[in-house]
């Protein structure tokens, strides 16, 4: 049904935003991830697809989970990899972004996987760099590989994305996962309801393609997919929330609330989870949860992205 882009469609490109991908290219990534997933199930989990390619993981913001997932993906593709944690505090002010990257570029990597606390940092770098850039999360803007692995997981469990009813609950205002997911899910034909305490709903959310709901019950009602977003503790200091206790009371995903979704609905979370804040343990550990599958799929999807961007005829 869905068209698939030719395997060379992404070669030599950056992956900065889901906005840059067509539905056919998204399908190509998901189909390629199927093949990569099979590699991960072998005894020797390694293919020579990116042998001789150098990938630098440049993390201006700490993230063990995403960095580990990329590192495993790179190793399974036989790339030469190097991970650099650039602590923003150790960098002289005014020398943070472009200078650091200039230094790394001088060593001619093929690809940079970049995580940065500022929205737009990857787009700014891409204008400056010769290397291909994969956005591993930029501020509150996007986290494209997370949305791709979420889509992969949905497709695996539901057989499709088109026509799915997806509920997204949590810190919408500050979530890059939300923004990438909205772009991807709209492109692939899903419909999206979102809910959060009013201070955490960004202005103009309808223009981003989501229908805001006042309550979690309304959002979850009849959903095929319930996606929870992480709530951060500092949101109380910045006047978004009175307490985590009240958040859970009003917006936490409990078994009762989950019962409003379709019986075969799945529960997703990009991690790390706050049990008892955004999700009850009985739901997180229950049969509908696919949270650990998301983690496993993350490696396959990232292998697919790296391969499609950096792989090529030179091998």
């Amino acid at each position: 049904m869905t068209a698939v882009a030719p395997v060379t469609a992404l070669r030599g490109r950056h992956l900065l935003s889901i906005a840059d991908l067509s539905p056919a290219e998204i399908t190509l990534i998901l189909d390629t991830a199927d093949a990569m997933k099979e590699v991960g199930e072998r005894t020797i989990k390694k293919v020579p697809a990116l042998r001789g390619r150098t990938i630098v993981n440049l993390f201006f913001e700490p993230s063990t989970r995403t960095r580990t997932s990329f590192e495993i993906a790179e190793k399974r593709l036989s790339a030469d990899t190097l991970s650099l944690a650039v602590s923003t505090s150790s960098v002289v002010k005014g020398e943070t972004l472009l200078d650091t990257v200039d230094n790394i570029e001088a060593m001619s990597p093929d690809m940079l996987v970049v995580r940065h606390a500022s929205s737009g940092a990857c787009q700014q770098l891409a204008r400056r760099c010769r290397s291909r850039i994969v956005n591993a999360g930029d501020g509150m803007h996007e986290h494209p590989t997370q949305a791709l692995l979420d889509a992969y997981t949905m497709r695996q469990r539901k057989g499709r994305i088109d026509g799915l009813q997806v509920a997204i609950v949590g810190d919408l205002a500050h979530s890059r996962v939300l923004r990438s997911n909205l772009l991807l899910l709209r492109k692939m034909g899903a419909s999206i309801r979102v809910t959060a305490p009013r201070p955490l709903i960004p202005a103009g959310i309808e223009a981003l393609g989501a229908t805001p709901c006042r309550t979690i019950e309304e959002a979850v009602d009849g959903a095929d997919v319930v996606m929870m977003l992480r709530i951060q503790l500092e949101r109380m200091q910045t006047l978004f929330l009175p307490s985590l206790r009240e958040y859970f009371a009003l917006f936490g995903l409990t078994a009762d609330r989950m019962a409003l979704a379709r019986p075969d609905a799945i529960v997703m979370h990009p991690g790390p989870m706050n049990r008892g804040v955004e999700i009850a343990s009985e739901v997180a550990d229950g049969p509908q949860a696919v949270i650990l599958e998301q983690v496993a799929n993350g490696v396959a999807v990232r292998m697919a992205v790296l391969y499609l961007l950096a792989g090529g005829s030179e091998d």
Partner: protein
Amino acid sequence: MHYILRNGRVVDPAHGRDGQFDVEVRDGVIVRVGTTLAAADGVTVLHVPPGCVVTPGLIDMHVHLREPGQEHKETVASGAAAAVAGGFTAVACMPNTAPVNDSAAVTRYILDQAAAANLARVYPIGAASVGSKGEQLAEIGELKAAGCVAVSDDGHPIRTALLMRRVLEYAGMLDVLVIDHCEDPTLKGDGVVHEGAVASELGLRGIPGEAEELWVERDITLAGLTRSPVHIAHLSTAGSLRAVRAGKARGIAVTCEVMPHHFVLTDEALRGYDTNTKMNPPLRGSADLEEMLRGLADGSIDVIATDHAPHHADEKALSYDQAPFGITGLETAVSLTLDRLVHAGVIGLSRMVELLSANPARILKVPGGALAEGAPADITVLAPDLPVTVRAAAMRSLSRNMPFEGWQLRGGVAATIVGGRLVYRNTAVEALAGWLA
């Protein structure tokens, strides 16, 4: 030197003039404006090229010249050079230098640098509070005596309603204008761009237009209480303009200025995260821009100013949320105004001259704003049909931070005359080749 600017289209709304006239200048002073003035022996005749327009010298009442303290961004001399290249014969510079211009010593230093540069006239604006910290009244009497034409804590709002009241009362007593940067800092929070769908999509923290509007309402209310005039700096939202109109209708002495970027760009320009689209107040939504156009046309906006805010390229090379606010404006304002307002049919040339010359002169109570016999010969010659391609590299400002690179605009500056002296001649206008520099 004694010369006649021959047969240009003279647009001088203060005298109700718009037509072909000669302007005679002797020893730096306008001596006559009339038709077919006879040129006596020894009087040079400078023919105004066809299509060029002679106007009173343009005045930018809101610039940041960065000296003293941040000379890597701009100096008084480089800023004055940028001003005359942009058609401005005078600029008023905000006090947020290092040290802040809250003393006669700093004011005199700026005036000395301006005198040494000998290009545009520079009118310092003093701080309203000591160090612009919002705690204690600055010595506004001393600042005025040293040459300040107004007071402001620009860069920050005047912090509390009580301080604003006292500044209005005290400055009003001394006949010194108060200019306020209107924004409620407690509502602005850590916002960096206009709050709306674009900010949400890009993941940038928003500043609601209401943060400005609350403060505009406050200032107008306090201007009413104190019966002192207040000038709203860089007005940018429809709601602020409604408040100004309502204040004027109540008889309150409120005036306001709008920057070219707020009538040319909206927050759509943020896509791509070019830090040269980051300024404060931020680029707003299209409804706000439409209202700016209405206000420019209907007279409720008094002034076009630039908020020329130079920053070094290294500072603007930071990530979007960390880069400093501000763009340069002196060398693009005339072209943007001609192209987007005059040629677009929003306003006529006469209104343009009111906004850029007559009104700022009247509000700041500085000379100029009209081609008056006996007044210093501060004159701008516009080339309204000149094709202009905006190039940061060709600019005289020390900084290049502006979002108009490569824009093709219709209309520019032909020449700038300060005190009778030709201080800028645009080499792209070939018919001016004979004019003496």
